[in-house]
């Protein structure tokens, strides 16, 4: 009998992987139960692209068509319909019309004829991620919107997710896992019968590694689609690599705290591999005459209004090394640096590591924010509190007083007035 751990692992893998990526298909299979193909190598994919003249001609999945109710694929869709019902009323869902419309319209543009099949949910989750379910439910996390610098970078990730959908990767993965679980059952019985049941555990490890490798191939193919969608809409493909390079910098900043990665079981290619590959795509598909755009102004006009709470959410993750690196990356991008320096000060203030001289680092960052402008009035409150801790009583008084002048009716104004009494 198949071991419970194998079943549990397979079910968990199915749920997590399917929720994280989307469907795919071959150039010949229909949505009527046909067997989707394996992934296309890059050159063949690009050949198809150049021959057809449009990325939308490559996938065979028909826009607007749903799987037959008797198929295993329909079962997968139904399962995700239930998840989607939960997403609709989730406390994490962001319903700001401008933000939702901006992301939805971008998804619609990239999805082309598949636009009516995709439904977008912008979720307040401070992590770098987006996901695509096989039934067309796409989740875009606020942590991704914070990290993307422009529309081209966001397009790369969204195009990647649409790639999973049009290639029906989830059903491929479900069938792959089902086949391998069945093989493992047969293999376990056979090995038990000949008296070497331990071989079953070795087979299990092999199967899990194989599932992960299959998944990595899907991720690679989805990256290619991301690039092709960008190309079709004249986005600067080099921006696709940058978002991964920046993520690598964030993870590297964790140093010894960086999560260990099991290459064997990893379902996604490593970020550095993805960045390198995307740069190769850019070289191949984007010559100097290509009218590349990144639409950063349009992106900033919408996302910039939400960046304050996104940064607050990031700080609440309590991973100061990574957050400081993220802020450094955003500062290099140059948009509203005063706001970013305020948050840099907040990271130092909340970490308050004496060995790192965090309180004085916070003071420096707050002062830089003051010099640059664009910071919130509560900077004066934070700076006053830091000065108080540093026993710089007069400076604390000045800053807290400035906060009260700017925010006389702030909810915490009575407390600030109380604080000023003993300070004086």
């Amino acid at each position, binding site marked *: 009998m198949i071991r419970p751990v194998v079943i549990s692992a397979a079910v968990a893998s199915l749920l997590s992987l399917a929720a994280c990526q989307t469907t795919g298909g071959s150039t010949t299979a229909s949505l009527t139960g046909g067997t989707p193909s394996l992934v296309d190598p890059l050159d063949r994919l690009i050949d198809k692209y150049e021959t057809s003249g449009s990325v939308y001609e490559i996938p065979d999945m028909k826009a607007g068509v749903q799987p037959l109710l008797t198929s295993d694929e329909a079962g997968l869709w139904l399962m995700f319909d239930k998840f989607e019902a939960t997403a609709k009323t989730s*406390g*994490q869902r962001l319903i700001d019309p401008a933000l939702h419309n901006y992301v939805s319209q971008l998804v619609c543009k990239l999805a082309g004829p598949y636009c009516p099949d995709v439904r977008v949910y912008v979720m307040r989750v401070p992590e770098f991620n987006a996901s695509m379910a096989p039934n067309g439910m796409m989740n875009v996390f606020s942590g991704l919107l914070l990290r993307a610098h422009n529309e081209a970078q966001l397009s790369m990730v969204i195009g990647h997710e649409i790639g999973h959908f049009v290639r029906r990767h989830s059903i491929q993965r479900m069938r792959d896992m089902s086949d391998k679980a069945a093989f493992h059952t047969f293999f376990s019985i056979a090995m038990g019968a000949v008296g070497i049941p331990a071989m079953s555990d070795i087979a299990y490890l092999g199967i899990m590694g194989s599932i992960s490798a299959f998944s990595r191939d899907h991720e690679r193919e989805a990256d290619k689609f991301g690039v092709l969608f960008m190309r079709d809409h004249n986005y600067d493909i080099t921006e696709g690599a940058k978002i991964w390079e920046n993520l690598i910098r964030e993870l590297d900043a964790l140093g010894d705290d960086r999560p260990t990665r099991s290459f064997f079981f990893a379902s996604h290619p490593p970020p550095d591999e993805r960045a390198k590959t995307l740069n190769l795509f850019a070289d191949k598909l984007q010559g100097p005459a290509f009218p590349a755009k990144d639409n950063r102004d349009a992106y900033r006009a919408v996302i910039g209004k939400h960046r304050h709470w996104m940064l607050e959410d990031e700080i*609440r*993750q309590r991973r100061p090394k990574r957050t400081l690196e993220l802020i450094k990356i955003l500062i290099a991008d140059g948009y509203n640096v005063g706001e970013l320096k305020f948050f840099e000060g907040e990271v130092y203030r909340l970490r*308050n590591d004496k060995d790192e001289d965090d309180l004085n680092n916070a003071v420096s960052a707050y002062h830089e924010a003051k010099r640059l402008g664009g910071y919130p009035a509560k900077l004066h409150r934070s700076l006053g509190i830091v000065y108080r801790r540093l026993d710089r009583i007069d400076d604390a008084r000045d800053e807290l007083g400035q906060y009260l002048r700017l925010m006389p009716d702030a*909810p915490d104004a009575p*407390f600030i007035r109380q604080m000023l009494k003993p300070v004086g």
Partner: protein
Amino acid sequence: MTTLRRIAAIGLILALGACTTYSMVEATKGYEVGDAFKVDTPIAWNKARVHSPNIELWTLDGLLQTLVFVTGVSNGDTLFSGPDEKKPKFDEKSTIIEAKAFIIDSLLTSGVLEYREISFAPAKLAGQDGFRVEFKFTKEDGMERRAFVVGALKDKKLYAIMYSGAEIYFYDRAKQEAESVISSAHFL
């Protein structure tokens, strides 16, 4: 299914059912909450057994109304215990503003997703100068909840009492009784 498996399954169900244990707090005067407070309650509550040393939890309709007693958080402690290293730690040098931020950040790193502050004002807890913050929040289930916390700093420790309930019907249903408990509190 064999008899042995049936017994194991029943045992598992019983064990899961026993994960949260409750006892009754009758309507009474002078009830001692941890080593922190003595309170009067005009109605009976269910007291849930929790694993946080600084927390005592009372409920009415399951978790639709809760009264959380914070019974003295010391320097370096988290509000809620657990393995999550990202939880904020209390600093004994905190001002009232920082103490309130510590409570809210602790909630936000423990399942609260959206937080909307309604008011924040000076208040007394058990005769000690402190604060009262009222807010609405949602968790992953999307249900809107309303809450208020009355807190104070005493002897370098943080003390607080928080009442929360589902916004529709449940919050109002026991708010007056919760206010009554809080206003009766005094330090042991």
